């Protein structure tokens, strides 16, 4: 019974400490808000997903063509728009990265 009581008490204390830890570690903070991606970051995420999707689709198309699942005619028809999509996403991501870099490095004089 004694052992059970001790273990139970230790468990309760350990759990209370774990739950209170973020407040014990930072008793007073200037900013307690959850950081969530802003509109720009969400746009970047969406572009990155679009880029990956287009690049993966290109890879799939190449592979399907090499394994004979896609005819030459279909391949020629499909590859152009996919390359354009990937290029557009890459270009948009580059532009965004440049803007972000310009924001970080202010110009002097």
């Amino acid at each position, binding site marked *: 019974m004694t052992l059970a009581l001790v273990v139970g008490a230790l468990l309760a204390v350990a759990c209370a400490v774990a739950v209170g830890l*973020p*407040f014990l570690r*930072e008793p007073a903070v200037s900013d307690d808000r959850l950081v969530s991606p802003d509109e720009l970051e969400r746009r970047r995420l969406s572009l990155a997903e679009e880029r990956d*999707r287009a690049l993966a689709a290109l890879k799939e*198309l190449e592979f399907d063509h090499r*394994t004979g699942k896609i005819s030459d005619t279909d391949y020629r028809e499909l590859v152009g728009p996919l390359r354009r999509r990937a290029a557009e996403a890459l270009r948009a991501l580059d532009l965004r990265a440049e803007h972000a870099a310009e924001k970080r490095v202010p110009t002097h004089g």
Partner: protein
Amino acid sequence: MADLGRAALVTSFLLLVYALVAGSFAAWRSRRRLAESAQNALIAAFASTAVAAVVLLSALARHDFSFSYVADHTSRELPLGYTLTAFWGGQEGSLLLWLLVLTGYSAAAVLTARRVGREVLAWIVPTLGFVGTFFALLLAFVSSPFVTQAAVADGAGLNPSLQNPYMAIHPPMLYLGYVGLTVPFAFAMGALLARRTDERWIVATRRWTLAAWAFLGVGQLLGAHWAYVEIGWGGFYAWDPVENAALMPWLAATAFLHSVMIQEKRGMLKVWNVLLVVLAFCLSIFGTFLTRSGIIQSIHSFTQSSIGPWFLGFICLVTVASLALVFARLPLLRSKTRLESLVSREATFLYNNLLLVALALTILWGVVYPLLSEAVTGEAATVSKPYYNFFLHSFGVPLLLLMGIGPLVAWRRASLRALGRTFLWPLAVAVAGGVVLLATGAGSSRIGVIAYTFSLFVLASIVLEFVRGTAARRALGGVGWAGAFSSLIARNRRRYGGYVVHASVVLLAIGVTGASAYQTVRESRLKPGESMTVAGDRLVFRGFESRTESNHRAIRALVDVYRGNHYLGRYTPGKNQYFAEDQVSNEVAIRHDLLTGGDLFLIADQVNGDGSIDLKALQKPLVNLLWLAGLVFVGGSLIALWPDAREERRLVERYADATVRI
């Protein structure tokens, strides 16, 4: 010690309530430290539930019959292994296992979900907390494993059908599967609550879903093998409601694993995918409800209890709340992409999804209908094997065919000429196989010939996929056949792991068809020295022998098996009489034929007072492919689950700025 167990469960309950309430508030009001505190509460709940589990295990190991649970489910003569597995042999213990796995999964998911985004994680925590709260509430206040009593001299023992080595692995596997489906559900709900419908929740739960699905699949196969060797009726799946309870969420999860690829590759089916995740989760809770509520009569449902209404209320609440949330977020889930062609890989995935969901829902209706009819008319209608078999044939056989068609069709669209080229060899193999089957007399079962022909088509298409893929990779230069083969799999583990899983489903289909459509059954009353014949094997009954073990008396019939004049061996079907439980179990004898993959299955139906036996013998061709399918399934799942360093690097780059930093 029972006090410690109770205290640990109440602590778990309080922590989970905190994770739910404080977590929701933190996510709603965007409070960082409170959100972190709620995460810690979720992790601490695992620790306190683990303490409760250790207390119960220790009570079982010590035969502490002051615990009602221990007294009700074990006895002093019960071997230690079964004494420990009695942890999940009863309702309270199995609910504790549920909570232990759930809090374990929750802690692991939260600790490894940094990529999902802090704002989404903030909503995932209360969702997991909500599910955990329900189970902790049941355990702490409604159905506790720590109820005590005046210690009795000996316990009531464990149900004999649970005294089997599979008891050690089958239920935990199923639970890892059932409970694992909570993770994708919580992540999907978290993403919707946070209004983030990008792919992060899918990427974060990819392996969780695959692992839960694999556990559920392996758990079912182990259960089928358990039923085959232990229950003693000669089958492995009886469309029992509790068996169906595990199959339904597995089917929904299978549909999700396919359709989620369309979302990842084409940005389509966002609403459908969320609905599938909700369906799979609700079906897993429904499965637990069926097993635990005592609402149905089943050989697997070994408990009668009053927790049914709690489960029913929880299922209704989850279903309504999830659907309302999906409906509220519909504008965010709209897809800009459309299906380009009805003859494309994504279209075959869509057909596969419709068939899988249709099969899951018809099975659900078969399970629910008797309950509804009893509630309305007072008499339970029976939904039996023909109903399920009809829908299995209607949806399952086309599904089998689609498994062969899908890999041969390109993404986006496929021309007739390209289709003709890719289908040529698989079709030729299937037609040739069909002709051989008919010529060798397999036409006695039409569904058997169809299933085998389709199976050959699928196997040929899978082999062709590996061959063509390896050849294409080799053509890039620099590697030999072996190098090209391993690089092919390493570069797309999900796809080729998936093909291996498809091969396992084909083996399963061949095994099930052989054991059901082509089995031979013979029954006869034999006196010592008399014989019977089944599918060419002569069985000679020689008499009985009996022995007494620690917790039962075993009686065995001695049956010598001959093929022609060749002696194949002695087999000993019989019965066990369990003392503490006062129950009798059937103990079957099985002769495995490794060359043909078939079994000779012997059941001592009746041991008669005059020294005779009612012997039932079943010859089950190819049935062992079912168990081989399990091994192949595990192999395919492991390939698909294995981390891909290239993919990881790409995701790290993609989510670099959105990753949670602690």
